[in-house]
């Protein structure tokens, strides 16, 4: 299954809700919890940096579980608000499309 345009950011925000993660583990979380998405992993990084620019996430260099230098991202307050807004927007979207599709 492919990721709909614009939804990657929502997935990243959701991935970070549990705590700071680096890019590789964000990607791992998304794939694990979705049961396998067809996603170019590199596409995650422009999205992360754009979100950082908008102030949804903050980043800090640290050590990975494998003891390598890695850049960790974490949600800001603004990111949390964004997650809430995007989630409900997404649900309304799905319900609307669903109603249309269910209509006879």
């Amino acid at each position: 299954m492919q990721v709909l345009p614009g939804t990657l950011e929502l997935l990243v925000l959701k991935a970070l809700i549990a705590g700071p993660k680096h890019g590789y583990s964000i990607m791992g979380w998304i794939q694990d919890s979705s049961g396998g998405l067809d996603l170019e992993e590199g596409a995650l990084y422009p999205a992360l940096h754009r979100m950082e620019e908008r102030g949804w996430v903050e980043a800090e260099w640290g050590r990975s579980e494998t003891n390598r230098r890695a850049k960790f991202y974490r949600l800001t307050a603004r990111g949390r608000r964004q997650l809430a807004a995007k989630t409900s927007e997404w649900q309304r979207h799905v319900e609307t499309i669903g109603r249309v599709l269910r209509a006879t």
Partner: protein
Amino acid sequence: MTRWRRTFRVPFRVSDIDHEVQDELDFHIVELITRLRAEGMSPAEAEREATSRFGDLDRHRHRVRRIARRRFRTHRALDSLRGLGHDVRLATRALLRRRAFAGATVLVLAIGIAAATTVFSFTRAVLLRPLPYAEPDELVRIEETLTKDAPGAPLHRNLTRPDVERLRQRTTRLSAVAAFMSPPIPYADESGARRLPSGLVDRHLFAVFGVLPIVGRGFTEDDMQPGAEPVVILGHRLWVERFGADPEAIGRTLDLNYEPHRIIGVMPAGFDFPHGAMLWRPLRPVTFTDRFHVVQAVGRLAPGATIAGARAELTTLTRGWAAAEPELHEGVTGARVRGWQAQLVADVRPALLVLAGAVALLMLLVCVNVAGLLTSRALEREREVALRRSLGASPGRLFRTVLCESLLLSLTGGCLGFLLSRATLGWVVALSPADLPARDLVAADARVAAFTGGLALLIGVAAGLLPAFRSVGVAAQTALKAGGTGTVSQGGSGARGGALIAIEVGMATLLVVGGSLLLNSFTRMLRVDTGVERDDVLTASITLPGTYEDDASSFEFFERLRRGALALPGVTDAVISLFPPLSGSLPIPGVTPRGVEPAPGDADDPVRILSVSPGYFRMVGIPLAAGRAFRASDDRDAPRVAIVSRTVARRFWGDRDPVGRWLQVAGSVEQISSDEDEPAARHEGEPLEVVGVAEDVRQEGPLVDPPPLIYVPFVQYIGWFGGTLLLSTDGDPATLIPQIRDLVRRLDPRIPLDDVATIAEQISGSVAQPRFFTVLVVSFALLASLVAVVGLYGILAYDVRRRLVELGIRAVLGARPLDNVVLLLRRGAFYLSLGIAGGVLAALPLTGLLESLMYGIEPHDPATITAAGALMLAIGVAASLVPAAHATRADPAVAIRAD
């Protein structure tokens, strides 16, 4: 959060950002390969798989870099803004903590900047503003130059009308040349009579300026013929005010110079050459314009021609006709050509330049002063600075903080200074001489504000640089090693403070010397003995229309005027004279004493004549040395009599008594009208009996030596073109002015009453220019002393604080309090004297610049210069006493603890 941000701010350059992006992406790929290997893939397989899952690495990296770089740049910009805001807040807080210091500095700056702003407002309006005509740089004034042989004769003079005519025909360096005069002309309408500035011009004048009438026509050759119909071209303002800008005004008539003139044209708005002219009439050839050098010439340089080139050509031409007509051009050596703007301001230029120089010096002093204050502050703060440095503040940041403080001070001072200058400008303009060119245009406008702003910035940077560098230097030594106990950098700063004292005092001394010289010169002008003892006499000059041609009607008018004035309440006496006291007389070249050979050289300084009615000497207070005053019986039918001034008596008869001797008037009297009328020749050949000797009077002006003067009875010698009513009153003379105007209007409504003023007001008007410049330079000198005193005080006070320990120790060792005071005073006095000596030495070559502004005193007057130096010394010592007195309180215990 702050920690988070700081970690984040580690990258300094864009290339750091690129590396970070690379590291981040590399990490992902390495992790991916590691996992795939752990799942059992071969290294090659794992790498291929990872690359494929990651997608187009180059494209992703490129996009990430673009975003990261953009974010970095935005951050950096915001950061430096935040840093600046931080610096300003820091500086403001620091200055608010030291209110006395900040207040004194801002005050010094505001005063200095206000002075500079005011002088700039004047300089800009008078010297820098271009004339409101097309290509003003091409306009030149042309004069004749004369030999220097005749002492007292002018070196340059105007031309005759035919001279200008010939010049126009032959010149190649000038594209146009015009002749003109600018008499104020009597003008009458329903509201009464007055004089308007006018131009009497040839038909080429408008071409020189490239302007044409907007309505009607310009002057033609026919208009220039003698005896042609009187015509006039209106200025735009007069056209609007009198005719409501009605084009039908053409062909109507205007009463000018007591006769109707037909209106033939209207000039465009803004054209007012010469000298604010409101109307123009044709300059017709009459004896006055063709035989006397009374016509001004204005020309426009031809394309590519220079002033020097035009001068060379016109000199050749002028010499040519001087040789052809030697009797009209005696002593002519060539031509002088000057830019019109330059000659317009030539009189005030030296004075304004002196002012600009004085204010520049004042500004420099202010700069040094503020730098000094900031430096001593920077020294006090050395520990704070060192602390900040050790806490990681970068040198750039420290530099910026100090500069910020200095700029904050200078900009605040600049704002205050501009407001101060603006608030006082009206007063200064009122003080300035009325004949200052472009005086009405002096204003504190946007350009002046820009100048002030620029000046404040410049001062802020100039004064801040030294202390800013110093604070960086201090930080570099990491002065914290002084262990939080010692005053840092004990040595060296004393000598630097001393040098500052010397420099400041020196500059102030220079200004005080200049100010004292001008003040001394000005008081001499005021104290000059004019020879006239009464200065509260009211004078009213009257010019008569040509209809009062014969002596009888002219005399009758003045008799009626005199009797009418005498009847006014408050008037105690009324007399008539040709000119007001101290305001000129007529030269009569051919006066000789009967039976005595004229001495050679008398012709250079011809005897002058003034006609006065009985009572004149008593009213204005001119004592008679011998003989009698005029009386009513010296009338038209009585024998001709004269009273000679002491100078004339000495010249003609030496020690012998002149009373009862006779004067012969050989030639005619040149009575020259300012207009096109012919000069009259009267009173020829009749002998005059000398009946009295009057003390000398500065009749040609308060600052001109008394001329050789002969008085004659007004009734025996009537100035047919006018006279002056003199009144003594028992109240305030000014209250009589409306009644006098009324009286003149009743006698003849056509007559404009020009100048009504007391003798004191006349004298005051004649010294208006020196008064203006003296007041300004003296104020600058006072300000400079004030600034220097503030600086001196600040430096010495700092010195005392810095040496409290030393003084305390000396006290412990048995020094009496007075010894400490003497110690400090001696040091201050040394640098003070050094400064004063330097200032005086610098003044000696510079005071020569003041020569043209000075009267009755040498520019190197030793007494004045010595007094100025002594004054500075007194001020300096007084300013040192206060901080030195503080040293007496150097209680050993307190002093040592103070550190």
